[in-house]
């Protein structure tokens, strides 16, 4: 294609993007002459350039658009949505023609008479010519003061009357000029004189991409040199090599920055989309954009463009209610969609928030069931947040009807997949009647990443450093050991059982080899943490990500490959893929039907340890509470004054039998579940550890029997759920007292819709010397306020029926009676956006439910922190 034409296509595309945005702005501020003249000028430029390049069809459409804009400018035509829509149509047509030219290299044949006719009809001059330039009124020669002008006018008028494209100069007889002459002008290869007053230059994307490739190679070569030097003693190469290394890093930074583009480029289309939607649906929507200048890698930008567009479209189409409904709900008639972008810790955050109706939980429930994603029974036990997550599942769409704007077959599942593919995450929060917020977090660049190089079965692999949380060396001698529970490997890490995947196992590498000294790479993907077992760990390297070969695309464990400093090609592991494998292994042996559901939604479930003690019935205990599972030699158990203790890690650990009539064995193996807290341990003696399963907590309470919370169906089996607190206090009467804060009982209100959770937390608090009152939801809690109850602290769940925690917090903070109470959120969802929302609603602290063992401690800490802040504020007030 001709260079000039290519330049024209690029320039016009830019102009059109600006036109879209400006027109939408203009429609709202029709009195703003600056915007209008800007719009007029852009359309005018497009038309003018078409004339130069001999593009009559394109020029005619632009001319029609300019014509109508001119009438706006001169006040001859009112700015109506219909008129703006027509101009936008003209822009779309220009865009379509440009797209065709892009592929064919020449203006497509045909005519746009219909559109132009429609536009001219609106402009009120159906006779208006669409050729360029327009005919003007016969010149007035009476003014003799300007001979040159007069001569010129004669000439110009002559040329125009004869429908000549070019107005020529006085002495030259007007003659038609081939309009396509421009393409034939030979290009001068000499360097241009410098353009003036311009601090930026345009560079072809290809040039930058090539540069990036070269830098990548340079990084590899640098790594290679560093690798060679690493084994050497200090020599004369060391210092220059370090310099080279630094310069390479700086260069890499520089080029990476060159690839950066403001996210506003991806937002350009959005005002137009929202505008079209408001016209189509009759809603009033304002789109606000903040941080449009926030920059990110253009490759990343390309990948999030479509997801962003989709989400904004969803918000406008389904999120924002129509004006009447909004007014009825006490909201302003105009809905708002707010886009917000900012940098934080090597990531870019993009927030898309609307103040619409929020997601319809009931509809999601119905849809999820109707589409076979889950069952009525299962969904009944799920929290709001868990139900919301269904919109990210394949085969789910909340659109009630397919409108002209949504329903293009792209669902939120594709959005999530796209975002996760570039190492990002997406979080969702929605409050009924108040709106929906998405928070997207993505890395700034993809091309070069820091990675940890590991080895399994003699092969090396790279794991993106972004996902690596920590490394744990494991061996039989060290404290950390890989335990196997019912064929699933787990690692006990600081009171948390971590599911593991073995790289050897999962990739089908030969087993055996160095089995004694191994490493676990603690890896995080979204909210999931799991461990990857590898044989060796090398160091971290900057690696250049090369896309994975098509042959390997079927496997979900690789994201690409790279070349290491020593020249070898290795695979880059996909933590996402491995994480799902970790989930599968954890449920592999559970009942198949339940197991299937478990894999699909494993982040919303808890792990349970199943065991038998004092009978054939299965007992279950939340796995988070168990520190360790030990098989003790029964002979080592000492019986002291009717109690049992054992030497355990240089301490005496008290043992408590689950069954009061437990017969202690003289020899053989005694299975012990170890609980620990604050450096103290206690062992619960059981008969047999059966399994670890993942499932939802769906517990029915039974009559109070000491040591049991109730019964539940877990993994398709009826089990008794154990009350750990009961046994802890048996071992240490003062188990919880260390966390008690004051001698006098203080009064806490615990608000949670789960009876199981209330029963789990209330005893913990009671034993920490708290007086506890419970309520099942916000409504119940506020009733207590009406009855004049007062509390020192209110601990509330977030997702609850009738009135959720955020609404409750708002209600508490907006009434004098409880406004001074300490408010602590306790939720199973403690993502950044959740915490943010909680703080906004008035919570002083936000704790994660998952960390139940440390609950009393965390509560005590939260109360102390909140009090300290309160006192600091008081002091400030006094000081000022």
């Amino acid at each position, binding site marked *: 294609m001709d260079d000039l034409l290519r330049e024209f296509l690029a320039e016009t595309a830019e102009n059109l993007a600006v036109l879209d945005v400006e027109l939408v702005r203009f429609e709202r501020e029709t009195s703003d002459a600056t915007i209008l003249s800007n719009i007029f000028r852009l359309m005018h430029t497009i038309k003018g350039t078409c004339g130069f390049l001999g593009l009559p069809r394109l020029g005619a459409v632009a001319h029609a658009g300019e014509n109508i804009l001119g009438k706006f400018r001169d006040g001859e035509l009112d700015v109506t949505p219909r008129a703006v829509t027509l101009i936008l149509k003209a822009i779309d047509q220009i865009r379509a023609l440009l797209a065709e030219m892009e592929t064919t290299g020449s203006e497509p044949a045909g005519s746009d008479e219909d559109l132009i006719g429609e536009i001219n009809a609106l402009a009120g001059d159906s006779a208006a010519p669409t050729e360029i330039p327009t005919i003007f009124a016969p010149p007035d020669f009476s*003014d003799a003061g300007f001979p040159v002008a007069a001569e010129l006018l004669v000439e110009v008028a002559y040329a125009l009357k004869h429908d000549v494209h070019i107005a020529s100069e006085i002495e030259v007889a007007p003659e038609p000029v081939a309009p396509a002459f421009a393409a034939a002008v030979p290009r001068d290869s000499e360097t241009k004189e410098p353009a003036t007053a311009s601090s930026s230059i345009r560079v072809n994307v290809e040039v930058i991409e090539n540069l990036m490739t070269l830098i990548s190679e340079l990084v590899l070569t640098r790594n290679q040199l560093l690798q060679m030097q690493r084994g050497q003693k200090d020599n004369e190469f060391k210092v220059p090599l370090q310099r080279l290394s630094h310069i390479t890093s700086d260069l890499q930074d520089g080029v990476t920055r060159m690839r950066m583009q403001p996210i506003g480029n991806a937002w350009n289309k959005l005002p137009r989309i929202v505008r079209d939607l408001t016209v189509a649906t009759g809603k009033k929507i304002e789109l606000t954009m903040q941080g449009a200048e926030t920059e990110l890698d253009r490759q990343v930008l390309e990948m999030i463009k479509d997801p962003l567009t989709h989400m904004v479209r969803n918000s406008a189409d389904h999120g924002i209610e129509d004006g009447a409904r909004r007014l009825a709900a006490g909201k302003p008639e105009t809905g708002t969609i707010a886009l917000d972008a900012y940098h934080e810790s090597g990531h870019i955050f993009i927030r898309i928030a609307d103040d619409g109706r929020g997601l319809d939980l009931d509809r999601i429930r119905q849809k999820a069931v109707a589409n076979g994603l889950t069952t009525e029974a299962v969904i009944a036990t799920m929290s709001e947040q868990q139900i919301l997550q269904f919109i990210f599942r394949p085969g789910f769409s909340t659109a009630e009807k397919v409108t002209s704007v949504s329903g293009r077959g792209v669902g939120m599942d594709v959005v999530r997949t796209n975002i996760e593919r570039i190492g990002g995450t997406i979080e969702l929060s929605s409050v009924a009647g108040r709106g929906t917020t998405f928070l997207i977090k993505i890395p700034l660049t993809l091309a070069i990443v820091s990675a940890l190089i590991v080895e399994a079965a003699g092969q090396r692999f790279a794991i993106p450093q972004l996902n690596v949380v920590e490394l744990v060396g494991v061996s039989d001698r060290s404290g950390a050991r890989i335990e196997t529970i019912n064929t699933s490997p787990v690692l006990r890490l600081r009171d948390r059982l971590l599911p593991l995947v073995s790289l050897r196992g999962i990739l089908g590498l030969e087993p055996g080899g160095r089995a004694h000294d191994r490493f676990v790479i603690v890896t995080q993907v979204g909210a999931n943490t799991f461990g990857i077992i590898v044989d060796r760990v090398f160091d971290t390297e900057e690696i250049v990500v090369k896309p994975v070969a098509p042959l390997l695309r079927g496997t979900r464990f690789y994201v690409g490959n790279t070349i290491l400093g020593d020249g070898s090609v290795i695979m880059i592991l996909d933590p996402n893929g491995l994480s799902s494998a970790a989930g599968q292994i954890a449920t592999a042996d559970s009942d198949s039907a339940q197991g299937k559901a478990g894999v699909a939604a494993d982040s919303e479930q808890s792990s349970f340890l199943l065991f038998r003690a004092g009978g054939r019935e299965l007992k279950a205990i939340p796995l988070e509470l168990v520190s360790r599972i030990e098989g003790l030699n029964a002979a080592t158990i000492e019986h002291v004054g009717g109690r049992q203790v054992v030497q355990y890690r240089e301490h005496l650990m008290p043992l408590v039998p689950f069954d009061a009539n437990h017969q202690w064995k003289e020899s053989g193996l005694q299975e012990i579940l170890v609980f620990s807290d604050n450096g103290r341990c206690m062992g619960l003696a059981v008969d047999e550890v059966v399994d670890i399963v993942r499932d939802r907590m769906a517990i029915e309470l039974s009559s109070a029997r000491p040591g049991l919370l109730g019964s539940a169906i877990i993994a398709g089996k009826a089990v008794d759920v154990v009350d750990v607190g009961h046994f802890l206090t048996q071992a240490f009467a003062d188990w919880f007292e260390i966390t008690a804060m004051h001698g006098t009982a203080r009064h806490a209100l615990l608000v949670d819709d789960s009876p199981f959770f209330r029963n789990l937390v209330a005893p913990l608090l009671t034993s920490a010397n708290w007086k506890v009152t419970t309520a099942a939801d916000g409504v119940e809690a506020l009733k207590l306020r009406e009855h004049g109850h007062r509390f020192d602290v209110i601990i509330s769940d977030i997702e609850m029926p009738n009135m959720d925690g955020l609404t409750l917090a708002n209600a508490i903070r907006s009434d004098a009676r409880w406004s001074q109470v300490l408010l602590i959120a306790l939720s199973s969802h403690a993502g950044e956006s959740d915490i943010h929302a909680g703080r906004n609603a008035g919570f002083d602290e936000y704790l994660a439910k998952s960390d139940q063992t440390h609950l009393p401690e965390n509560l005590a800490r939260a109360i102390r922190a909140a009090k300290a802040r309160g006192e600091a504020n008081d002091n400030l007030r006094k000081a000022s």
Partner: protein
Amino acid sequence: MNTNPLCLVVDDSRVIRRLAADILKGLGLRTAEAEHGLAAVEFCRATTPHLVLLDWNMPEMDGITCLRALRAMDLHPRPWVVMCTTESGLSKIREALEAGADEYIMKPYDREVLLDKLVQVGLAERA
């Protein structure tokens, strides 16, 4: 050192700037470019061009304002200014000439038109 006449092309369209520059170079001139009136004025503060091709509709500073500014600067030697625009209204042409434009040509123009102008002001010769 190239002593060929210098022409400043002022237009907000990259395509038109390049097109004009290509024609002018073909005619043996040196060229410089400015994307709006303000940039053109800046340029002329440092370097006086022999010829200015000046668009009318531009952001930042339009052609007529730029023209007045250039004339107010009283440059030596006085550059030739040719208004190049699709603004075809009589009042516009008069306004430009009053402000000190030497010539007024309509867009789109081509090599022939430009060559005639250059010959006329003695910046080029017809081969």
